[in-house]
C-alpha cells in the first residue's frame, strides 16, 4: 500500500528544465539552515528549563516533517507512527544532553531516522543492509532517454504529483531510499547523512548518485512528453 507523503507547490516560478537552454552553473540545493526558524533556539532553551508549552510548540512545528521522514524510510504507517512518537519522546527525555552544536531540527532528524531505521531493519532483515557494497559503474548509464517537455512538474495537479512521488520513492530499494531521503528530502549534508547512517562519505555519495539516477528513470514514465500517466 502506498502512502502519499509529499505535496508539491503548484505554481513555482522556475525556468522549464525540459527546454534546451544555455549552460549555467548548477544551483546547489538548500541545506538545513533554511528549514529551521530563527526562534527555534529560544523554544529549545525554554523547553530545557521545563517549559512544556515550548516543547509542544517544537512538536507542532516539526511533527509533519518528522512523520514524512519516518514514513519515507519505513514505508509502513504503523512503524512510521511509532518511530515518530519515540523520536519526540526521546528528544524530550534527552533534551538536556542536546548541546546545540547543531540545529534542534537536525538533531531531531537524526533521532527519528535512527528510530525508523531500527524498525526497517527489524521488518526487512534480509532486504536492508548498508554494509553491502554498491554495484559497479555498468548499471549507471540511463536506459530510457525521452524529452520531459517544459515544466513537467506543472503538468500535474498537486495531488497527482503527490502520488507520483510517493509511488516512485516506494519502489526504490531501501538502502538507496534512506540516503536519498536524508540528503535530498530532509536536506542533511553529506557528512550528517554519513553520521546518521554510520557509513562513509564516499558510500553516501555513491548511493545518492544511484538513488537520483534510479528515481530519474522511474519519473521518466510519468514526465515524458505526451504522457500524463
Amino acid at each position, binding site marked *: 500500500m502506498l502512502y*502519499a*507523503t*509529499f*505535496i*508539491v*507547490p503548484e505554481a*513555482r516560478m*522556475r525556468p522549464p*528544465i*525540459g527546454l*534546451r537552454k544555455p*549552460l549555467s*552553473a*548548477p544551483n*546547489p*540545493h*538548500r541545506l538545513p539552515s533554511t528549514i529551521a526558524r530563527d526562534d527555534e533556539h529560544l523554544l529549545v532553551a525554554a523547553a530545557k528549563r521545563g517549559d*512544556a508549552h515550548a*516543547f*509542544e510548540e517544537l*512538536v507542532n512545528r516539526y*511533527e*509533519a*516533517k518528522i*512523520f*514524512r521522514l519516518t514514513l519515507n524510510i519505513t514505508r509502513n504507517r504503523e512503524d512510521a*507512527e511509532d518511530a*515518530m*512518537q519515540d523520536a*519526540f*519522546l526521546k528528544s*524530550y*527525555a534527552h533534551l538536556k544532553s542536546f548541546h546545540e552544536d547543531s540545529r534542534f531540527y537536525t538533531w531531531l532528524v537524526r533521532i527519528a531516522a535512527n528510530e525508523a531505521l531500527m524498525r526497517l531493519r527489524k521488518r526487512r532483515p534480509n532486504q536492508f543492509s548498508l554494509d553491502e557494497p554498491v554495484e559497479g*559503474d555498468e548499471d*549507471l*548509464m*540511463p536506459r530510457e*532517454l525521452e*524529452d*520531459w517537455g517544459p515544466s*513537467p*512538474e506543472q503538468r500535474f495537479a498537486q495531488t497527482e*504529483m*503527490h502520488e507520483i*512521488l510517493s509511488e516512485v*520513492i516506494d519502489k526504490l530499494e531501501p538502502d538507496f531510499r534512506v540516503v*536519498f531521503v536524508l540528503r*535530498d*528530502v530532509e*536536506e542533511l549534508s553529506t557528512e550528517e547523512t554519513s553520521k546518521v547512517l554510520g557509513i562513509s562519505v564516499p558510500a553516501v*555519495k555513491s548511493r*545518492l*548518485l544511484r538513488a*537520483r*539516477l534510479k*528515481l*530519474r528513470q522511474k*519519473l*521518466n514514465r510519468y*514526465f515524458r512528453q505526451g504522457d500524463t500517466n
Partner: protein
Amino acid sequence: MNCKGVIREISNYIDGDLDLAMKQELERHLEHCEDCQMVVDQTRLTVEVFCDSQPVELPGDVKSRLHDALRRKLQEKSN
C-alpha cells in the same frame, strides 16, 4: 570526459561539489552531447521536485495519539 564520466559525476555537478577544472571539462562535454544534457537536467529536476515537496498535514488520529503520549510523558516528569 566521455558520457560515462559525466554520469559518474552528475551528483557532484548538481551539488556544486566539482572542482573548477572538472566542472569545465564536464560542461564542455554537455555543450555537444544532448543526451547527457538531458540526463543532467532531468536528474536536477528529480532532486528539485522532492526537495521542494512539502509534508502533508499529520493525519488527525496520528496527531492526537502523538500529543496524548507527549502529555503522559510531560505529566510523568512533573510528578
